[in-house]
């Protein structure tokens, strides 16, 4: 059977207008159904005819899944809120600027107008072997084409690899983890749950074919951000090949509370180095109570990359991650401590 790409095959398009209806449809069609948010990741798969769902459940008509609302001193962001709407929202801008920066650094303005935050955190990896439809581990096969002596793996993982060396490409994910957000999941079976953003993402060791804990039939309805870290000292930086329309090579997101120049508390997350965003708990512990200076930053940077295992073309990610962690602590430019 010959392969043809870039032509979307036919499927049944279902357009519910309420979460309840969406859940009913999910319950009815289970793993035959594909959840469609903004489509920026979905259409790639569909157009390439690699994923061939029989039903596509388009969430774009569900208004209750859109918008940013205040909730318990924090905010709740509907999963179908576009990245542009997240970026533009005054509460996000005033209290959670790190999320604004992260969301604004994603993709391109056109993509952000269409892409949703729920889709952004649920998106699949961009490993180019996997996305070309090669039958690798992640696609249910038994090989990783990206980690062989001949692979071109500049964008791949330096940490947490387990057979598969793909990375999570999301820019908003590390910011949300830094803000200690929670993911609200609802399911057709009524088995609703709320999971920490940190635990929403999974590595290949846990499930090599999935990026998140989302089970078939489950819907991410909202993301809740507590008030705890509102207005903290934030740092977000993303290094990429191009200034727009480009996934991160590595990104870092952190929220820090200081008293004077002493770090009281910090949450620090790096993405695009592993299959899931990595919260660097050991570094967080280490910097607690330390002065925010170059020494602390240097030591933290070295600590962050412990155990990193570069592949043939991605060794640069090790110093890059180290330097970004340093910067998250000591800042850069006008932020720099020295």
């Amino acid at each position, binding site marked *: 059977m010959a392969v043809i*790409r870039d032509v979307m095959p036919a499927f049944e398009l279902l357009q519910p207008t309420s979460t309840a209806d969406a859940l009913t449809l999910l319950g009815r069609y289970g793993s035959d159904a594909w959840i469609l948010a903004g489509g920026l990741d979905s259409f790639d798969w569909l157009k390439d005819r690699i994923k061939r769902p029989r039903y596509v459940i388009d969430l774009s008509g569900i208004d209750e899944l859109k918008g940013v609302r205040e909730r318990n001193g924090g905010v709740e962001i509907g999963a179908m809120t576009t990245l542009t709407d997240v970026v533009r929202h005054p509460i996000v801008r005033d209290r959670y600027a790190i999320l604004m920066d992260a969301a604004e650094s994603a993709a391109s303005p056109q993509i952000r107008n269409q892409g949703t935050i729920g889709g952004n955190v649920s998106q699949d990896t961009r490993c180019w072997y996997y996305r070309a439809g090669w039958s690798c581990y992640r696609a249910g096969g038994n090989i990783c084409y990206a980690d*062989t002596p001949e692979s071109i793996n500049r964008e791949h993982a330096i940490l947490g690899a387990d057979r598969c060396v793909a990375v999570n490409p999301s820019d908003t994910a590390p910011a949300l983890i830094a803000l200690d957000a929670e993911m609200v999941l609802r399911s057709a079976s009524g088995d609703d749950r709320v999971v920490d953003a940190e635990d929403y993402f999974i590595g290949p060791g846990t499930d090599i074919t999935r990026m998140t804990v989302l089970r078939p039939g489950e819907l991410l309805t909202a993301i809740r951000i507590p008030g705890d870290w509102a207005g903290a000292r934030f740092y977000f930086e993303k290094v990429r090949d*191009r200034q727009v329309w480009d996934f991160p090579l590595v990104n870092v997101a952190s929220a820090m509370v200081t008293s004077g120049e002493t770090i009281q508390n910090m949450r620090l997350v790096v993405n695009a180095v592993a299959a899931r965003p990595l919260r660097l708990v050991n570094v967080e512990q280490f910097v607690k109570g330390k002065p925010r200076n170059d020494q602390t930053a240097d030591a933290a940077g070295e600590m962050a990359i412990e155990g990193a295992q570069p592949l043939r073309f991605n060794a640069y990610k090790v110093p890059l991650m180290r330097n970004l962690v340093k910067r998250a602590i000591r800042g850069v430019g006008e932020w720099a401590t020295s």
Partner: protein
Amino acid sequence: MADTKYIGQNYTPPDLVAKVTGRARYAEDFRAEGMLFAKLLTSPMPHCRVRNIDASAALAMPGVKGILTADDLPDLGPNVERALTNEPFYAGEPILAVAAVDELTAAEAVEKINVDLEPLPFVVDPLDALRPGGPDARTTGNVWGAPMPGGVGPNAASPVKTIKWTGEQFADADEGRLPMGEPTEQWAYGDLDAGFGNAALVLDETMVVQSTGHHPMETRSAMAYWQNGKLYIHASTQSVAQTLPNVARWCGIMPQQVVLISEYTGGGFGSKGGGAVSTCIPAMLSKKLNGVPVMMRITREDENYIGRARTNMSGRTRIGFAKDGRITALDLFIVQDNGSYGPMGDHRSAGLAASIIYQPQAMRWRAISVLTNTPPRSQQRSPGPMQANGQRAKLTSAFIVEALDKGKQAFRWDERKAYSGQRRGAKVRGVGVAVGPHGSGSIGFDSLMTLRPDGKLYVQSGVGNLGTHSVMDLARVAAEVLAMPWEKVEVVWGDTGKGVPWSCLSVGSQTTHAMTRANFAGANDLKRKLQEIAAKDLGGSPDDYELSNERVHRKGAGGGLTYTQAAKRAIELGGKYDGHEVPEDINVMTKGAAAKHAGLGVMGVAKDNYPRNGTTYSFVIGFAEVEVDVETGKVTLIDYLGVGDVGTVINPRSLLAQIKGGSCLGIAHALQQKWVFDPKYGLMLSRRFHYSKPLTILDIPATMNADAVGLPDPETPVGARGVGEPPVGAGYGAVLNAIADAVGVDVFRRAPVTSDLVLMSLENKKRMHEPLRAHV
């Protein structure tokens, strides 16, 4: 030309509104009754042989109308690329096409076809093909030999040969020194040994330049149908007149049987120079299906493979400098990755460009053009000279010094240079300058225009409308010569059915030079005819008459004829005046077009026979300032200026846009654009558009500057030369030099210079990147 009214003035080209409002119709916008859609089945392997095609299940599907295979296409001769093949030379090469009532059905049909393929040896890295015992891209060999005697043009027919280098010659390859075995071509001038002997400093360096897909905005879609034995084809091409004979050849018919419509083309950058061979697929499918219209929209995925790419080159340069910086000797060896078809000539242009840019006292150029199982290449905007950044050519003119001086001042070079290399925080800046040269003009093409009783001048334009405005600019010359108000000039373009003259290929910075000359000739022919008609009717000699205010009249303010009257008289007079007699030396296509216009008014029709002494080259000097973040390796372009030495400026706004836009392509090559192959399977990994990382608007400074010295070329009557390519090398070289200025010359030896290369070199205090490997 002195005292010009149009030349050197900005204007709004007549096609602009249609383009910005979306009214412009590109090839895929056409629809016809009963139109079918075609989809391609392409090779999944980099090299294989089709053993059997079983399309029975596909053909049994409702809505599937037929398939086309290589067996349905005319044989174009040995080694010539055809639109479909039974021996794919690269993954993504079309094997067959299916026509169906819609694309969805066609795609499903493709999936139902079983093609039995026999894998054959393949190679994607040119050096691997040269290694002892290395695989060959073709069963017949691995390199293109030098063009055979008697061949004409840069890509004249060459033989396929087998050349392997020795293990010894590869000894230094791991250290990043390009092996230099037997070349297929070479030339030299001067005394190389003496040059190196006299040098105060001799460097020996290897640089690897990447390949990149052209990726014009519009893919090479086409729609075709047949009526009364004639092929009507809507295609996306850079050139109109020059594409017609190609389409005819691909379809095995006579040029007179083809009507080609291509009013708007969404870019080409050299990938659609003489059209695209794939456009014959809908034409041949339509022929097989009794002329029913067939549309073949090319997806971005297909375009990745069949859409052409720049040849990548690895160059090793031994270069000797005298104390004063003068280059005493240059020994250049190029291994060119020619891709799967060709033969390409970029390596030759690169050698020539090097001799022009660096002006060495002695130089040797050696090169080998290697076949690989990667998509076919074609010239990409500044093919060769960008990569070079031979024989010393005699140029028509060069005002590089003037351009350098102008740019140095405008760019505040000295001021910026003063703080380059200094580190502030994590940032360090650097400046760079480079000369982008490019051959910029051919000669000998035709012009055709008519001044009609409606008082308008109709200028037939046979070049393509690929976004550069030259398709219209050439008529400005006619308006100038004939003192015709621009509002009364109608440019007729984009449809060979309307009769267009034999024109240059809209490639290689040729058009402005070639077609201003041709139209200068054509307009002067028309002017002479007006003068003769006036003299016939009103007495005196033709030379007593001049043109102004849409009249031909006696010099001063004497009597004369209005253009309308003259046009009517021409029709009465017939013969050469209204185009019933045309010059012998014009091309057969121009003769056919003239016949269509004969009797419509006074005809200007002529071949460009103006003399030219020397080779025509244009130059752009690029000035760049970059900032490197040494903690991330990220390079940011801070400022850029391009200064052109391109002769007389015809259309300033368009010229400056060309300098900036062309520079952007070079900047992209310096910073990010590339393509990537998996060596194990020979498949392209950067198949998604964004993986190939073309430049974005945020990767360049918010304002980029451009200027031109505006000194006319003495060897062409209008003084104008082309500008399409020279800025590419200028942007590329200037940015690379600026990076080297900021972080040191040893940080990189390959492009693009992405943050990983920079960071790893700085971190390890030596270059860490793969030294010679292609396509990473």
